[in-house]
Structure formats: structure tokens, C-alpha cells
């Protein structure tokens, strides 16, 4: 009902939003529901995540955005009481049914969390550890990748002279950017970001936004944000979640501009005009 998606492969339509590379589904979500300990919190979400595009998800607190994001990289599997149904098509596989190597999958689908969570290691080790884990044996290669990731998030200049110092000593904004770099260093295909800027000041937030824009085309990005202005600035596609009787639903999904300027659903309209972004 809520799928206001242009017919695929029509670049004309997509161009209505912020320019985006290939309107081809990278990840297809079909009828996905999430429940915790038998209590449903998210019901029957269906949408496509487009390759190389930025998809923003908005909605009030508790409507299941984080839960939705965590199903995409199967992180919900590790939450004991979580149960997910539906289909998640990625690379001709149904992630929810077929046997997948989760470690490899998560290398391909990276995630950044709302609270910066750098490991209590040095800055360098924070980036080296995932690389080593994924079998990047060569020291030189690692060095190159780490430097590139730090440059991508604009942290290189700020920390290149103290890579051995603890990551926890960085400021909040720097920590968040480090976490993004940690996800980027694995060169994922899809990057899931859960309110990456909520702990940041406008400048740091601006840096991250620019970074996300620069990632467009190279990466597929799904971003949850409370900042509607940000969603509007960044996204090619946007989804609006709402909660009725404590169960979250995807109310509307469509091109970012459409959703913000000509929302179909009354709820969406109310949220967008009422909420103070």
C-alpha cells in the first residue's frame, strides 16, 4: 500500500530526488515483522533499498527504526528474545531463511550506531582489528586502507600524529567519525547508520553529512535520523514509520522530495509539519 516507488530503471523519476546512481534494488525487504519475546514491535514492512542511493528512515521514538536496521544485517539474531519473519533478499539469497555466513555478510553490510562505541583500544587498533579479523594479512595493505578510511571521515588531519593514543580520549564527534571509519575500512556495500549525528554538534554533523553525500554512488546507505532537515538534504528515498497500538509500521515510502513535499498519508503530513526538525 505504501510503496510510492517509481517504476525501476527510470532515471528520469529518480532525478526528481537528489541525484542517485542506479535505481536497482540492492536489498529487498518483504513483509518483515519483528517481535521481542512474542510482542510484535514492527509489522509487515516491505521496501527496496536502492543501490548507490541514500535511504532515510524517520519516525517517532520507539517505532522500531533501530530494530528494522538491525534486521538488515541480522544483528537481531543475537538478541535472545527477538524474532524476525518475512523475506530479506540480498544477492539472490533470503537472509532470513538461507544459511548465510553472518560474519561475511556483516563485512558487506556495515553498521554505525547512535552512541559512538569505539573499542577501548588505540585509534589505530580500532581500525586494524576488523581488518585483521577479515583476513587482511598484509601490513602495508592495512596501512593504506586505514589511512584512506581516516581521510574519508576527515579524521586523518586531526589524529594522524596520535594514532597510538586511546580512542576513548577523543571527543564525541571524533569518536563517531572513528566508528564510521571503522565501518568504512571494511569497504562494505551497504552502510546502515542509526542516527549517526544525534550526538554531534552542527559542525561535526555537517562533516558527517558531507561524508555521507560523498559516499553516494560508491555505497548504498540507509540512515535513520530524527533530523528531518537532514533527511531532506541527504536522502534519495525516505521511509516514514509510525506506531499504532505500540506496533510500528511503515506508513509511507517514496522519493525523498515527494515524501516531504507531497506526502500521501495524512500522518506523514502531520509529522512533517508538526515536528520541529
Amino acid at each position, binding site marked *: 500500500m505504501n510503496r510510492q516507488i517509481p517504476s525501476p530503471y527510470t532515471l528520469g523519476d529518480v532525478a526528481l530526488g537528489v541525484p542517485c546512481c542506479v535505481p536497482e534494488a540492492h536489498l529487498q525487504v518483504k513483509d518483515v515483522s519483528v517481535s521481542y519475546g512474542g510482542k510484535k514491535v514492527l509489522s509487515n514492512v516491505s521496501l527496496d533499498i536502492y543501490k548507490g542511493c541514500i535511504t532515510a528512515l524517520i519516525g517517532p521514538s520507539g517505532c522500531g527504526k533501530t530494530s528494522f536496521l538491525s534486521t538488515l544485517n541480522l*544483528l537481531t539474531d543475537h538478541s535472545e528474545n527477538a524474532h524476525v519473519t518475512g523475506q530479506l533478499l540480498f544477492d539472490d539469497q533470503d537472509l532470513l531463511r538461507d544459511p548465510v555466513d*553472518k*560474519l561475511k555478510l*556483516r563485512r558487506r553490510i556495515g*553498521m554505525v550506531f547512535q552512541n559512538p562505541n569505539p*573499542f577501548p*583500544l588505540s585509534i589505530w*587498533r580500532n581500525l586494524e*582489528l576488523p581488518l585483521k579479523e577479515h583476513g587482511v594479512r598484509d601490513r602495508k595493505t592495512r596501512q593504506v586502507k586505514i589511512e584512506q578510511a581516516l581521510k574519508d571521515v576527515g579524521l586523518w588531519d586531526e589524529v594522524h600524529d596520535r594514532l597510538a593514543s586511546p580512542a576513548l580520549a577523543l571527543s564525541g564527534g571524533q569518536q563517531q567519525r572513528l566508528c564510521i571509519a571503522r565501518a568504512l575500512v*571494511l569497504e562494505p556495500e551497504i552502510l546502515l547508520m542509526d542516527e549517526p549525528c544525534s550526538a554531534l554538534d552542527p559542525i561535526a554533523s555537517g562533516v558527517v553529512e558531507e561524508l555521507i553525500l560523498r559516499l553516494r554512488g560508491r555505497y548504498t546507505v540507509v540512515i535513520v535520523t530524527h533530523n528531518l532537515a537532514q533527511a531532506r538534504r541527504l536522502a534519495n528515498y525516505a521511509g516514514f514509520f509510525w506506531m499504532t497500538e505500540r506496533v510500528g509500521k511503515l506508513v509511507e515510502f517514496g522519493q525523498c522530495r515527494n515524501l516531504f513535499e507531497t506526502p500521501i498519508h495524512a500522518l506523514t503530513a502531520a509529522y512533517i509539519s508538526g515536528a520541529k526538525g
Partner: protein
Amino acid sequence: MADRLFSYLVFGCALLVVALLFWVLGDVVIEGSRHFSWQFLYSAPADAGRSGGIGPILVSTLWILLIALGLALPLGLGVAIWLSEFAHQNSHFANGIGISLDILAGVPSIVFGLFGNAFFSIYLGLGFSLLAGGLTLACMILPVFVRTCESGLRAVNDDWRRGALALGMSRSAAIAHILLPVARPAIVAGLILGIGRATAETAALLFTSGYVDRMPGSLLDSGRALAVHIYDLSMNVTGGDGAAYASALVLVVLIITLNTWAQSLVDSWFKRRLLS
């Protein structure tokens, strides 16, 4: 005002603990140093321990400790990791293991001794030996070590677990590189409680590592532990008090050394990886 009172109470507590410790150890230090000489440390006991020293006993004690810790440490850490990282929160099995550990912590040491004798010495054929003693001790310190480590691991921030998972890191890597180093203080606390329990044990060792005060030639030899020696001298050997106090003094110094060593060992082990 009430705050002041509370401070006094807290300081009072600490002072009382210190005072009690000094009171308990007062005799040990005074009587012990009267009987102590450097020779006491390395010579063999004579006349049922009244004279001579504690050389062989010290060696046996260290061997037993080494076996017990060498076994209980990896085993205990493994169990603690399983309980906190792998077990399902409300599974009956994990709960059962938890309760088993608590029960094991309450089994009287003499029962451990008799069990160790029946199982290790007789059933497994180890006889009265350092090995049997060390194994029995390992069983004894396991519960307290596991429980302390487990609490420490559970207290580690979930954000790091989540972060590691989202990076496609294996659970094992997250444990080795992040969780264990972060839980270091609890591991030290568990280790120290374990060392304490092991050095203090009498009854369990009497029935397993035995009473022989000869210098042990191998791990299958019987050897008398320091706590057993102290027990024998103070309770069973007339006129053994002086030597008992001196042995207790050596034990106190040994504990302090071991604690300091354990602390720095664990620190250096984990801190290299961790900067906080």
C-alpha cells in the same frame, strides 16, 4: 551532619577491618619473627617440625598452587565466558550451572578432601601426591573464580559487543581483544580470591597431597602444604607453636607476593592491548 556521620561510619569500618587484621596477625608477626631465620626458609623440618625449617614444604606449596591455578584459571575463565557470552539468558542449563557453582562454593573443604582422595588419589590412581592436591584445589577455587569473572564480563558495556558483531568480528575475537581486557579488574579479583582460598586450604590437602615433609621429587610425590604444616604444628604437635607462627608469617609474605604478582601479571597481559 548525617553525611559526616556516614563518613565516620565508613572510615570506622575501614579502621575496624585494619585493626582486626592487625590483631589477628599480631601474634603471627611477633611470635613468627621471633622464631624466624633465613635458614628457616630453606632447611628441612626436624623433630616433627618444632625445629629446622620449611624448605620442602614451601616447594610443595608452590607446586600445588601452580597446578591448581594453572588448571582453574583457563577452565574457570572458559566457564565464565560461556556463562556470560554464550549461555541463553533464561536457559535451565545455564541456571543449573550457576547454582551448581554456588553449591560447589559451599561444599566444606573436608568433603572436597575426602572426595579428592576417593576420586583423584584412589580412583584415578594418583595416590597421595602434589598432583592430586592441586587438582582438588582447582575444583575448590573454580566456583569463586568463575562467579567473579562472570560478574565482571556481564558488567561490560553491550555497545562494544554490538559494535564487534556489526563489524562481522567473530565472538571469539571480541572476547579475546575487547571483553576480557575490559573485565580485567574482576579477573584479578577472582584470581586473588582464588589464590587466597588455595593458600589457606588445610583439610582438603591433608587427604590428597598428604603429610610427608620430604622434598618432593616429582608431581606424583606426596608433599605437605604450608597451611597443613601450620595446622599440624599448632594443633597436633606439642611445642610447635613457635614454628607454626613463623610458618604463618612466611605464608603471609607469600600471599602478599602472590597477589602483587598476580595483579601485575594480569595487568601486563591485558593492558598492552587496552588503552583506557
